[in-house]
């Protein structure tokens, strides 16, 4: 329990934050979108940080989750190849959320199985390609997705408890807490996973694959399960995004969002629990802070330079870097001055 104190403190701070900011809508919006991308970053960390698979197509899961959730709640009417007409009536957004999670979990399963045939740099390229194909489909299958014209009017979430009535989450404050709750659940899930036998298996595979195989760890199954959970979490984040923004277009699949997530994970500290959150807050809110000072292109240049700098200066990321500084301080405080050998009589 003690080691969870930093996380709990952070949670408390985040819960109180809207009120500290006077419920400023601009800032709340920034926090909500940052929070959503941070959840996606946490899911990417599961693959990148804990199993060592550099999946750079992660945005595909996010986007698929967003579109599935949006289309489920909006309904659609398409004609498929062969004249088959598929009509879907709108369903409640919560169902959209569930379907988004299931659909992306299935995609995650495919990616997991694929990562066996294809390793290292090739895996990176395949995942990027997958994301691009999905983006092009979203762009071109206008009948289903409205292409660049975007899906609009996506309904917000309605949560209801039997006997207590339903609330529709329209305000920023409500959405902020929804994101916080989902984020906390995701964090807890990952924390539990990492501390378990499954987490040990992931670590083993990342650090020494042949050795892991030789103690009976099933690499395919472990990586596939990690990919499924990771994808499902990203899909959930995508669904939150769709029902908060209430408008989704193919730009949700842009490689630049994947880059942002990667910077959050790598900058914050891949393979750590708090890393993506620290990274998420810093790199998600950095554009907001830089906006008055720099044009977006310049901001991206800063991002690129930061990404480079991290690899040289703090390759493990901010959280481990800070942790190391703290332990070094403690260690140097603990050592007493020694009498040099030559001085002894």
């Amino acid at each position, binding site marked *: 329990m003690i080691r969870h104190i930093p996380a709990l403190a952070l949670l408390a701070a985040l819960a109180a934050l809207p009120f500290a900011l006077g419920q400023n809508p601009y800032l709340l919006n920034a926090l909500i979108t940052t929070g959503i991308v941070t959840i996606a970053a946490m899911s990417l960390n599961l693959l990148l940080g804990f199993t060592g698979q550099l999946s750079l197509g992660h945005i595909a899961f996010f986007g698929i989750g967003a579109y599935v959730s949006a289309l489920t709640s909006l309904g659609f009417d398409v004609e498929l190849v062969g004249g088959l007409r598929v009509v879907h009536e709108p369903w409640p957004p919560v169902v959209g959320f569930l379907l988004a999670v299931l659909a992306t979990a299935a995609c995650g399963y495919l990616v997991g199985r694929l990562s066996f045939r294809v390793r290292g740099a090739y895996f990176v390229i395949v995942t990027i390609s997958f994301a*691009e194909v999905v983006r092009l489909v979203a762009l071109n299958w206008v009948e289903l997705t409205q292409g660049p014209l975007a899906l609009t009017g996506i309904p917000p979430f309605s949560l209801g408890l039997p006997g207590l009535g339903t609330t529709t989450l329209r305000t920023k404050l409500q959405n902020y807490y929804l994101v916080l709750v989902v984020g906390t659940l995701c964090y807890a899930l990952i924390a539990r996973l990492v501390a378990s036998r499954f987490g040990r298996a992931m670590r083993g595979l990342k650090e020494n694959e042949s050795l892991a195989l030789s103690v009976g760890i099933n690499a395919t199954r472990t990586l596939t399960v990690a990919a499924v959970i990771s994808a499902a979490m990203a899909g959930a984040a995508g669904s939150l995004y769709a029902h908060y923004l209430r408008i989704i277009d193919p730009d949700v699949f842009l490689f630049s969002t994947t880059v942002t997530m990667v910077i959050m994970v790598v900058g914050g500290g891949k393979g750590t629990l708090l890393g993506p959150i620290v990274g998420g807050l810093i790199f998600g809110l950095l554009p907001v802070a830089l906006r008055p000072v720099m044009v977006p292109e310049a901001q991206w240049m800063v*991002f690129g330079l930061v990404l*480079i700098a991290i690899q*040289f200066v703090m390759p493990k990321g901010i959280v481990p870097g800070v942790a190391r500084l703290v332990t070094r301080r403690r260690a140097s405080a603990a050592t007493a001055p020694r009498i040099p050998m030559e001085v002894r009589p």
Partner: protein
Amino acid sequence: MPEFLQHLLNTLILGGTYALLGIGLTLIFGIMNVVNFTHGALYTVGAYVMYLAVTALGLSFFAALPTAILGGLLLGAILDLVLLRPLRGADMDTTMLVMIGAGIVLQSGTLWLFGGVAKSIPTPFPDAPLQLGPVSVSWLRLFVLGAALVLIGLTYGLINRTRLGLAMRATFQDHDTASLMGVNVRLIYTATFALGSSLAAAAGALLGPVYVVFPQMGGMAELKAFAIVILGGLGNITGAAIGGFILALAEELGAGYISSGYRDAMGFLIIIAVLVFKPTGLFAKAERIG
């Protein structure tokens, strides 16, 4: 039938520049084992240098091309010296992320400097296309094809007939042995990266006048370059050249007979298909380059 012939002709032209892109990347990927995420940015830089040379510096079109190639060569060398050399020996993830960062800086920098409005590069060729029986081709595109073939030929010559090329081939096969044999491996790496980058720049400089020049043009080009490299097998120049033409053919036929919207998707589908079914590429004699 004439439609098909037209597609074939377009394939030749597009394929030549794709081949340049692919050869450049396969050299870098194959010899240095670096996933070069700046390749697309170099393509873009090549196009912009071409643009600047013709419009701002007033150079002739035919002088601007070598200028762009030289620009790519220099930029590639700088990138290697500043970013890759200090990281030699670091794990692949670190190098990849640094390259991604550099690519972002270059692309955003281009956007920042030139703005997002697409530019076109004036060419000295007549507008009226040349009619060759049932097919037509513009003078510009004919020049592009010719230039691409010349550059591919020069690259072949460099790799297979010069001492530098010999050293590169040796390094590709076995870094340690090559260095024990007296090859200055550090120099070879820089030369390889510079050469690969100059080929990307050449491709950009050639295609820039054909289409338009805009800062994001490199993104797609880079992913297509990866498709070509994977098709042809890592480090396999002939494979990359053929792969370039295959990709161009797939795009032309796909756009012509299936749907033009999905034209760009062809490259990715090829990547995915090849990696899933035959990860070593279609021409897997990846034990030697050349």
